[in-house]
């Protein structure tokens, strides 16, 4: 395949544009057509038969031992025969310079012979099998109905007829078998099988790619499959080609590199007729062949995630101007060469400095579940994936966790930040891999409920979230909360095996929620007014020196109090300031958060100061929190707080006020009115903000203790 520079040189702007359709890309077929065109130009060139060849099909065999088996036939004399002047069977290496000469055209069906006389055997075929395939060049391919018809209409058709004649000679066939078995020494091989033909008594043996009649027969065989497959006899007619929009002979049973369209199907509509498929999917012969050639590029732009196969196909938005198409070729070439990165990342590296108007690339994105060859489901799809969204999401996320006070430890001098950070957690620290995470779906795999990835579900929210982000469509808050909570509950473990509170997970989820709510990205939405505040972007301070008011004064009370105050005020989902709407759920959510914070705070006190192995955090796991239980949990937690206050007073004599009074006072205010029995907050909403509170509370302590805390937790989380 030509390198991008070679491609640019061989196909300057004018030449390239002459090869491309005038209309912009508006459908998957348009896109595949463009890929197929570029692929043909870059591999077999622009010749008459170029689009019909499949140079990549046997690409793995290049320069391997015994990868090419050639039967030599001499048709120059009166009677065609196996080569007598040279070894009649050549076993050699398939090399780069033979690619054009063998003119291989693969037919992808099992047990079918390839379109070209050159045929690809299965992996590690034994000598007997290879011998059989070699003989079939004469006994099967040369007498194929389509091939003989093509031969009849070609001035050199006699060459193919002569091949068939040799195929009738039993002793010649035996010789072929003996020679192959002997030359392979009983070893299996992965090989291409072909013929060389001597047509002039004073000439040499020619490769099929050099003889027009072989090419023509190959072309006819490939074209025949566009109209006869499965039960179709001749699915063709005159209609408007869906790629070029021009009238053409259209064909009904061509292959689609993504298998979205096949001849047979199970359906709701009775009477669909495969013979008439050229009407419902009108594609011209030329376009069908070109689309089939898209396969290499299409496959290079896929990967598996969430049990599905994800297609990521970059394309040029708008008119197919040569400079854009050249850049697209670079991207596709890179995708073929580099398997590690996604085309989105490659495009980003190339296009990062461009403004949105200048970014010409869009992406066709789909998540596909290929159940069987003929049973595909698409779970999420867009032709409008834009570089802007994944890139911006990655950047915004990194900036968010780096700069905002909620996650930034440098912002607080003596006391911890509201939420814990940990460099082993991809969503809690600036991360060079963030774009990769976003574009592969890992971004959501880290926070959403885990599923069995062997077989993806049509409604896997991770796939939906991935496709949404790639196409800039908002994700529903309800889905996020449901996924978050179910992941938290899973990670906490069940009753028998409680695994500890996943505070880094909750912090990661919260960071993600805040970033998706970013005003410019606008990737969060809800149809439920009670969750409106969650979709609003938080207004946390960014890293600046604390103002004079924020610096705790010696007698100014507890440093934890202003921190809690500002965190709540700056988080719209919790803030009383965002509470104008009488139906607002923020006070109930705040109640859940504060209760969690108290449970986390006391739990952490129990663990460190009391050396208790089971704490309040374990006692009230997230799944135990419901609207009906919240009152009881609150009462018991506050009771516990009072116990510890009394205990400390006894020991130290001078404890100032109630323990954790900055939380308790607020909690009392919030949880009384309305009474939790009248709360209407949804369970997932309640539980997530309770979990956030627990995370906050567990992390709410002076700096010096945090060091050990973070380290220990790190080990725990990573076990």
């Amino acid at each position, binding site marked *: 395949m030509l390198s991008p520079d070679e491609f640019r040189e061989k196909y300057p702007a004018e030449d390239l544009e002459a090869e491309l359709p005038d209309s912009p890309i508006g459908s998957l*077929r348009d896109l595949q057509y463009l890929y197929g065109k570029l692929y043909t130009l870059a591999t077999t060139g622009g010749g008459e038969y170029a689009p019909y060849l499949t140079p990549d099909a046997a690409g793995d065999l290049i320069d391997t031992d015994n990868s090419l088996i050639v039967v030599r036939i001499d048709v120059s004399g009166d009677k065609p025969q196996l080569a007598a002047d040279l070894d009649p069977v050549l076993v050699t290496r398939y090399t780069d310079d033979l690619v054009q000469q063998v003119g291989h055209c693969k037919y992808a069906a099992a047990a079918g012979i390839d379109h070209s006389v050159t045929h690809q055997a299965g992996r590690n075929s034994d000598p007997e099998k290879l011998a059989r395939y070699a003989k079939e060049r004469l006994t099967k391919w040369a007498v194929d109905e389509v091939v003989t018809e093509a031969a009849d209409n070609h001035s050199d058709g006699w060459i193919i007829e002569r091949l068939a004649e040799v195929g009738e000679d039993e002793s010649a066939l035996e010789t072929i078998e003996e020679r192959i078995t002997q030359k392979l020494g009983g070893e299996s091989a992965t090989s291409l099988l072909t013929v060389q033909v001597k047509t002039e008594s004073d000439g040499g043996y020619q490769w099929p790619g050099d003889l027009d009649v072989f090419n023509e027969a190959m072309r006819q065989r490939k074209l025949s499959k566009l109209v006869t497959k499965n039960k179709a006899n001749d699915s063709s007619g005159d209609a408007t080609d*869906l790629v070029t929009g021009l009238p053409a002979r259209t064909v009904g049973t061509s292959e689609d590199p993504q298998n*979205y369209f096949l001849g047979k199907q*199970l359906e709701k509509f*009775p009477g669909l007729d495969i013979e008439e498929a050229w009407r419902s999917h009108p594609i011209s012969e030329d376009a069908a062949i070109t689309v089939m050639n898209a396969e290499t590029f299409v496959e290079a732009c896929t990967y598996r995630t969430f049990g599905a196969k994800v297609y990521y196909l970059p394309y040029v938005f708008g008119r197919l101007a040569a400079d854009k198409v050249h850049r697209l070729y670079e991207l596709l070439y890179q995708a073929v060469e580099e398997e590690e990165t996604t085309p989105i990342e490659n495009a980003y590296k190339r296009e990062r400095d461009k403004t949105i108007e200048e970014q010409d690339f869009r992406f066709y994105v789909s998540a596909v579940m290929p159940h069987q060859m003929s049973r595909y489901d*698409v779970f999420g*799809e867009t032709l*409008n994936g834009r570089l802007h969204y994944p890139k911006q999401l990655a950047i915004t996320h990194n900036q968010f966790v780096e700069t905002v006070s909620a996650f930034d430890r440098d912002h607080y001098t003596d006391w911890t930040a509201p939420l814990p950070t940990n460099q082993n957690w991809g969503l809690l620290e600036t991360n060079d891999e963030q774009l990769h995470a976003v574009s592969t779906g890992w971004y959501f795999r880290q926070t959403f409920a885990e599923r069995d990835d062997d077989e993806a579900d049509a409604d896997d929210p991770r796939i939906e979230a991935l496709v949404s982000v790639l196409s800039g469509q908002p994700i529903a808050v309800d889905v996020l909360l449901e996924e978050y909570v179910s992941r938290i509950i899973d990670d906490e473990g069940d009753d028998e095996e409680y695994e500890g509170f996943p505070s880094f997970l909750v912090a990661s989820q919260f960071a993600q929620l805040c970033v998706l709510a970013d005003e410019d990205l606008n990737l969060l939405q809800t149809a439920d007014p009670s969750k409106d505040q969650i979709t609003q972007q938080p207004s946390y301070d960014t890293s600046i020196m604390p103002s004079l008011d924020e610096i705790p004064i010696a007698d100014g009370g507890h440093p934890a109090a202003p921190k809690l105050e500002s965190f709540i005020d700056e988080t719209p989902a919790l803030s009383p300031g965002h509470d104008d709407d009488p139906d607002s759920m923020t006070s109930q959510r705040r109640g859940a958060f504060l209760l969690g914070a108290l449970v986390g705070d006391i739990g952490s006190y129990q663990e460190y100061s009391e050396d208790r192995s089971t704490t309040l955090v374990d006692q009230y796991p997230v799944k135990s929190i419901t609207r009906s239980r919240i009152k009881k949990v609150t009462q018991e937690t506050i009771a516990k707080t009072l116990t510890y206050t009394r205990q400390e007073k006894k020991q130290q004599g001078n404890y100032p006020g109630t323990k954790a009074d900055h939380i308790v006072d607020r909690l009392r205010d919030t949880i009384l009115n309305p009474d939790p029995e009248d709360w209407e907050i949804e369970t997932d909403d309640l539980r997530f903000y309770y979990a956030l509170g627990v995370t906050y509370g567990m992390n709410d302590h002076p700096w010096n203790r945090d060091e050990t805390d973070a380290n220990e937790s790190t080990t725990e989380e990573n076990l």
Partner: protein
Amino acid sequence: MSQQSLDGWTADEGSDQPDHCLSFTVRGPWGHFRRIEGNIVKQTYRIIPRTTVAGLLAAVLGIERDGYYDLFAPDTSAVAIEPVRKIRTVNMPMNTLSTAAGNLQSLNGRGKISVKLPDPTTLRQQHNYEVLVNPAYRIDVALADDQWYTELRETLSAGESHYVPSLGLSEYLADIEYHGEFDIEDGPRNDTIEVDSAVPNAVDDIVLDPGTRCQIEESPAFMQADSGGRTTTGFTNYAYSPDAESLEVSNASAASVDGRTVVFV
């Protein structure tokens, strides 16, 4: 079906635009307009294809299958389509039975009326359908054929329909709200204009800005009948806003209908 010439249809000589149209909104809880790229997969167009609009109106008028393509041909009709609700889709798995000839059973084979049904005892296969949720489109339509145009106006204004209107599949029933008959006036002639409808064949003229989302799709626009059935004769490449907002377009020749800016195709 009588056919009027284009001259009687347009207001002034030389104009390629009809002078009045009917305007209605079609909406429903669900919609599915199968994309032609897939029969194994069932993805939907976001913008109701022009051929589907023609079929829908033929259903309203009671014209048989394969009987209405000339009525909606390029030189005798004009249709503008505006999505009026945010475009949203969901995946809806459905269980299907094979309708291949070998899997169909005849019911009442000897009687006068015979029905062929899939064998209900065979195993279903589940397939995922991409389905539009609450689709709604404002449609402006002009027809050169006066007789059918008048009949369409009367049927729509009476709130009637010959066949039950639906959005793509028969089970996705449609509700049609008729707004009335409006003059088609020349649209704004500025360098860039705000177009309310989906914009046909103008991808390169869309002014992209970060605040507005713009998507494109290509769907069948025109059909013709032939001896064996029907074929598509033209496709349209629509640019549209999935948020049902207007798009900024340069060089567009738009029309003005009922105070809205639309582009007919």
